[in-house]
C-alpha cells in the first residue's frame, strides 16, 4: 500500500497548491538558465549566422563587438587581394533609437555589402532579401515592423521588405539590415545646421593655412559634401569579414593580414571567445550565481514544505511505529512525497515556462540538456529536502501515539 499516494489523495488541494508554488519556483530556476542561454545565444548570434572565417579589425583592438573598431572601407578590397581569400565583406553595426508610432524603437543597424550580400542568408519569415542599393531594409520581427512599413531614419525613408526571426543584438534589440552605404548614411547622419557649421569650420581652418590662402579653389571645395573632398576619407567601417577559400591555409591568410601593421585578425572562434570572456562574462557569471542561489533557496523551501508536511503526520507516524511499521515504510512515505512534489513541480515549471517565456522581452532559451540537468537537480533537492522530515520522523517514539 502506497501511503504517500494516499496521503496526497487525502490532502489533494493543499498538495496541489504546494506543487504549484514549487512549480513556479522551479520555473524561475529554469527561466534563469534560459536567460543565461539566451544571453550567450544573442551574443554569438551574429558571429554564428554571418559565418565568416576571419574578422579583420582595427589594429590592436578587440572589435567590433568588445570595443570600437574603425578601419577604412577600402580594407575590403585589400583583403580580397590576399592569396587564399575567397570573399570579403564590410561590416558595420551600430545601435540607434528612434520614435515609431509614438513608441521608442531601438534598432541594431547592420550593413550588408551590396550587391554581393543582399541578405539571402538571413532567416526570413516574410518578404524578400534586399532588392535595391538604397532605401530598403530587412527588420527582425522583434522590432514590431511589418512588410511595407516605411521608417524615416535621418533624411531618408526606408521600406521594410523582409522580416527575420530571432536576429537580435547583444543587448536584445532587434537587428535591421541595410546596404552598407545606407547603414553608414544612417550612422553619420547630421542635421543641416551641423553640416553648415562643419563647412564653416572647414573653411575657417583652410583660411588659416597657407594653402588655403593660395588656392581659392580649395576654399570653394570645402563648401561641398564631405564625400567629394579628396582629403577626407570615406566613412570608416567596423570590420571586414573574410571567407577563406576551401583548402587554403588559413594561418597563412592570418599571417599576411596581421603583417600589415594596421589590422588585427581574429578567427570566428577567437571572436566568440572575445564576446563570451569580455562582453557577456559578468552578466553570464551573475546569472549563473543567481541561478545557484535560486537552487539553494528552492531546496530550503522544499525542505521546509516537506518538514511541515511531516510535522502534520507525526502522530500518525508514531501510530505506525506502534503498529510495528519498519523505518523503510515511514521513510518511503516522506521520500516519495518529496519526489512526487519535486516531479509535479518540475512538470508544472516546464509548462508554465513554455507559456510565459516567449512573452519575455529577451530570449529565454531552454535547452534539452538544461532540462535534464534541472531534472537531476530536482531529484537531488527532493532527496535532500526530505532528509529533515525523515530525521524528525525517525526521532518520533511509538509511545507518542498514546498521547
Amino acid at each position, binding site marked *: *500500500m502506497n*501511503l504517500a499516494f*494516499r*496521503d496526497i*489523495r*487525502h*490532502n489533494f488541494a493543499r498538495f496541489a497548491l504546494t506543487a504549484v508554488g514549487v512549480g513556479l519556483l522551479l520555473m524561475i530556476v529554469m527561466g534563469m538558465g534560459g536567460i543565461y542561454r539566451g544571453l550567450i545565444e544573442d551574443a554569438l548570434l551574429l558571429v554564428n549566422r554571418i559565418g565568416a572565417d576571419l574578422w579583420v579589425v582595427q589594429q590592436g583592438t578587440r572589435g567590433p563587438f568588445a570595443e570600437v573598431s574603425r578601419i577604412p572601407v577600402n580594407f575590403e578590397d585589400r583583403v580580397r587581394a590576399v592569396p587564399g581569400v575567397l570573399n570579403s565583406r564590410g561590416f558595420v553595426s551600430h545601435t540607434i533609437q528612434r520614435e515609431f508610432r509614438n513608441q521608442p524603437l531601438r534598432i541594431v543597424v547592420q550593413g550588408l555589402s551590396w550587391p554581393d550580400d543582399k541578405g539571402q542568408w538571413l532567416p526570413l519569415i516574410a518578404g524578400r532579401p534586399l532588392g535595391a542599393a538604397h532605401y530598403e531594409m530587412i527588420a527582425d520581427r522583434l522590432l514590431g515592423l511589418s512588410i511595407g512599413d516605411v521608417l524615416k531614419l535621418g533624411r531618408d525613408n526606408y521600406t521594410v521588405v523582409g522580416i527575420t526571426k530571432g536576429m537580435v543584438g547583444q543587448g536584445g534589440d532587434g537587428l535591421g539590415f541595410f546596404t552598407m552605404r545606407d547603414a553608414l548614411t544612417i550612422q553619420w547622419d547630421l542635421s543641416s545646421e551641423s553640416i553648415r557649421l562643419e563647412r564653416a569650420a572647414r573653411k575657417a581652418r583652410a583660411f588659416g593655412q597657407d594653402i588655403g590662402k593660395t588656392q581659392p579653389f580649395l576654399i570653394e571645395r570645402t563648401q561641398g559634401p564631405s564625400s567629394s573632398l579628396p582629403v577626407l576619407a570615406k566613412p570608416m567601417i567596423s570590420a571586414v569579414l573574410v571567407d577563406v577559400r576551401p583548402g587554403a591555409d588559413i594561418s597563412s591568410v592570418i599571417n599576411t593580414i596581421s603583417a600589415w601593421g594596421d589590422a588585427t585578425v581574429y578567427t570566428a572562434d577567437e571572436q566568440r571567445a572575445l564576446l563570451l570572456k569580455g562582453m557577456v562574462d559578468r552578466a553570464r557569471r551573475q546569472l549563473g550565481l543567481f541561478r545557484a542561489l535560486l537552487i539553494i533557496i528552492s531546496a530550503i523551501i522544499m525542505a521546509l514544505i516537506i518538514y511541515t508536511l511531516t510535522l502534520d503526520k507525526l*502522530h*500518525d507516524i508514531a*501510530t*505506525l*511505529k*506502534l*503498529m*510495528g*511499521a*519498519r523505518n523503510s*515504510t515511514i521513510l518511503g512515505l516522506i521520500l516519495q512525497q518529496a519526489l512526487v512534489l519535486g516531479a509535479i513541480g518540475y512538470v508544472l515549471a516546464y509548462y508554465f515556462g513554455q507559456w510565459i517565456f516567449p512573452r519575455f522581452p529577451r530570449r529565454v532559451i531552454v535547452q534539452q540538456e538544461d532540462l535534464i540537468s534541472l531534472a537531476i537537480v530536482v531529484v537531488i533537492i527532493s532527496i535532500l529536502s526530505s532528509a529533515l522530515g525523515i530525521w524528525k520522523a525517525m526521532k518520533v517514539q*511509538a*509511545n507518542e*501515539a*498514546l498521547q
Partner: protein
Amino acid sequence: MTKAPAIETKGLTKTYGSGNTEVQAMIDVNFTLGKGEVVALVGPSGAGKSTLLSSVGLINFPTSGDIFVDGAQVVAGSEPLVDVRAFRRKHIGYVFQRANLIPFLTALENVQLALEINDTPSGEAKKRAIELINYLGVGDRLKNLPHMLSGGQQQRIAVARSLANNPSLVLADEPTAALDSVRGRQVMELFRQVAHDQGAGVLVVTHDHRSLDVFDRILEMEDGVLIHKIEQENGTTH
C-alpha cells in the same frame, strides 16, 4: 479452566526520576494473562495502569523485572530481548482511547495496512481486512475515511486493526473513554467476543465501571502496586 499464558510478568518495577524526585510507578507487579482471557485493569489516575500497559506492550520498558509473551522471555530487566517493533507487529495489537486511525486511509485500508506491514500480500490482506471489519459489524463502512465514521465505528475499526495479525495479546487503554455508555459497553463486549473467538489475551485499562461485568477478571492497581485480583463468575481462575 487454565489457559496458556498470553503474557506473564515477574517482579516488574518502574522508577521515574531519581533522588528527591524519584517516583515508583510500578512496584513488583506479577500477573499472568491467559489466551482467550479478557481482563480489566482499573485504578485511580496515576496508579500505574498505563505504565504497566506500555511495559507489557513493549512501548516503554520497566526498570526491572521479566516479561514473557507466549512463553518466551521478551524483556529482562530494562532491556528488550527481541526486535521490539517486529515483535509488536507480529504479536501485539493496540487499541487507544482515541481510535488513532490513520486519517488519510479508509477503514479498509487502515486494517489492511496492519497486515501489509506484517508482510501479508496485498490481496490476502484485503480479504482478511474485509472479513474482520464484517466480523466487527461495520462492513458497510469499508470505504469511509475515519472522519466519516462515528466514534464507536472508529473504535470497531481500531479493534479490527489490532486483531489483523492474529496477535496473542491485545492491549487497550481506556478504549471507551470517548464513547457514550451504550457504545462503550458494545466495545467492551466486543473485546470479550474477540478474546473468546480469536483466542487472544485482552488487557483493557478502563475507568468505566458500568461494563466491568463483561470481563473474566479485574485487576486493580494503586500507587504502582497490583492490589486486587477479582475473579468473576464468567471468568477464569488464576
